[in-house]
């Protein structure tokens, strides 16, 4: 009994803070999504599910969801592939691996605003990318990258991938180091090398890291705001609008706070569904003894 009181006493402050700062606002968001509210006074009108009905038929919102999903697939694949390569390179002993590990984390230390400005400079029509293309005789490839409806979202995706790779490389690096040495040695003795070893040993054994990384990636991409807002403002003509830039527009530009909260709930639902789906599909450790006996 005394022990329980002790535990509760220590847990209570954290739980209370979590309740006050996370759960209560989340609940409030749900409540406000049922109101028409301009967010400039306390006056609100209850509209029930109207905001959600409007949301379901809102092509601009659906486009932003699609853009988020494209970012998730496009940037996600690049991020995971590149970070795996970087993780492998940095797992090797030696100074250059250490140096690379340091370098890969540099973007993480830069503020997102600086990342956006940097990539804006690169993608500027007079910027680094077009200058390089012209320099190597590929003038016909030059574009107004961020002003082109076919490339703006990809441009944001590239900036996001550049920023995020270091973090995921760190995650995968830790995962690689966690693969028992005897497994690697056994693989080596059995003559498993290169791609075969990666596909048969490393990739399956990275299961728990993979699961964390992908879930994290989903949350990250669904929360994309600053990069888009700063690089393209969702343009041209909504080509790179994401759920959160759309939310911002509804709340702070159009003064539709109730509707914006419904967008937030929609965003939460999409992220939740995707995360749960990932946890479901990756629920079994392919390397666990139980699985192997089943197989």
């Amino acid at each position, binding site marked *: 009994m005394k022990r329980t009181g002790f535990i509760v006493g220590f847990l209570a402050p954290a739980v209370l803070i979590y309740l006050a700062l996370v759960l209560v606002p989340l609940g409030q968001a749900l409540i406000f999504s049922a109101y028409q509210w301009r967010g400039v006074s306390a006056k609100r009108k209850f509209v029930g599910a109207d905001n959600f009905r409007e949301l379901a038929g809102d092509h601009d919102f659906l486009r932003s969801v699609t853009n988020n999903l494209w970012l998730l697939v496009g940037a996600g694949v690049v991020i995971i592939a590149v970070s795996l390569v970087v993780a492998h390179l940095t797992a090797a002993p030696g100074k250059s691996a250490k140096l690379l590990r340091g370098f890969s984390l540099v973007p993480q230390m830069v503020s997102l605003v600086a990342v956006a400005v940097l990539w804006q400079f690169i993608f500027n029509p007079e910027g680094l990318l077009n200058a390089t293309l012209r320099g190597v005789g590929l003038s016909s490839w030059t574009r107004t990258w961020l*002003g082109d409806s076919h490339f703006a979202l990809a441009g944001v995706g590239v900036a996001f991938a550049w920023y995020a790779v270091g973090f995921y490389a760190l995650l995968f690096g830790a995962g690689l180091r966690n693969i028992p040495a005897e497994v690697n040695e056994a693989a080596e003795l059995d003559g498993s090398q290169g791609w075969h070893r990666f596909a048969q040993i490393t990739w399956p054994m990275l299961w728990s890291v993979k699961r964390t990384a992908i879930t994290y990636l989903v949350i990250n991409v669904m929360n994309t705001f600053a990069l888009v807002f700063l690089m393209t403002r969702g343009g041209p003509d909504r080509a790179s609008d994401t759920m959160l830039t759309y939310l911002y527009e509804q709340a702070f530009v159009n003064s539709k706070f109730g509707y914006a909260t419904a967008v937030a709930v929609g965003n939460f639902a999409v992220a939740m569904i995707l995360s749960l789906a990932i946890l479901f599909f990756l629920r079994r450790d392919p390397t666990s003894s139980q699985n192997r006996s089943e197989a």
Partner: protein
Amino acid sequence: MKGIFQWFAISALAISVVGCSQPAGSAKANEPAGSTAKELKGDLEVVAFKGGYGLDQYEKAGKEFGEKHPDLKVKVTGDPRVWLQLRPRLVAGTPPDLMFPGWDMDVWALIEEGQLKPLDEALDQPAANGKGTWRESFDPNVLKLGQKDGKTYLLPYYVMTYGWWFDPGVFTKNGWTAPKTYAELLTLCEKIKAKGIAPITYQGQYPYYMIEGMLLPWAASIGGMEAVNDAQNLVPGAWKSDALLKAATMIDELNKKGYLQAGAVGMSHTESQTQFVNGKAAMIPCGSWLPSEMKEVTPPTAKMQFFLPPVVDGGKGDPSTMLIGVEPWMIPNDAKNPEAGIELFRYMTSLPKAKEFVETKNTLMAIKGSDEMKLPEVLVPQSAALKAAKTVWSNQFRSWYKAAEKDIEGALTSMLNGELTPQQFVDRCEAAAEKTRKDSSIPKYKVS
């Protein structure tokens, strides 16, 4: 990861708004305020947008005003994104006494929600110098921009003029003159292009610069004020009228002929304006804040001069027509010391203070006579154009119907990207206007 923090930042903001949304203090009716007879005392809090003109002039005025009223404690604060800070305070019913919430505050929502005091009683009292009423000291064309249903809620301070800019040094050197008509513009653009300079650049990420610098002035030039008034008043068909279509076709023509800088469609305001000040582009449509906004990056040899958007030969509109804008000041309905707020602003808009602002900040003011002095060089063409203008108007559509404006801006970008024809562009504009017309939750306004 910072993405998450970004989300938290927004959530926190929303939470702070939500959290403060309980009983909104006293739900006072819109009481008129503004008696000058009352002794001013207590605290006077002023919150202002810290934009290109800074806060120093407001702070100075506050200090001077405080010295005149020893029982009054004046506090002036500001921020470049002050509108975000003011929203939760307005919701909580604890706003400042005088506020200048900046360009991104939805001021019409504030009026709709009864958050602002009507100021007509105060305006009908004497001006700061005692000569005539305070109302008479403002330019009536500008004052009317803050009115709804005959009541004045928003007071103007500085006046922004919209037009085009060129570098007189570059033009003189090349023997060019600022084009007065669209035909002259086409001829000039060809000459500029031949020199290897982009004739016109524009703030592609913010298409309203082009809407206010080309589309609407040209529609007004072609169809007269009726064309743009009808568009602003959401008259069915007005956004796809012949005037709007012709104006859109002109933009498309400039684009197709390569007179608009390649790539500008993806540029932010600062990127494109930098192209202009560095001489990579010869002209740019922009408001009167351009010189102060670009002060830090303008090479010492570069100069910039304002001119009115070229008009269309044979158009119905008067060639002197001028587009202006204001960023208004206001008194919140829940202000604790509204009288003091009003009196401070009356002092700020007195002729000597207005002239001081003109001189220090290089902008025109909404106060009559404030430009009767030796004006800073950069203001001379703007002031002359404003004085000569037979019609002065403002694009209020952008602040009234933000969702429609966003649609129209998106459509303009698509036209510039060659994805829409001018006809498809105006059809989309009309569809955006139609959507707003049908949406009963959006309050409707009329150009007065």
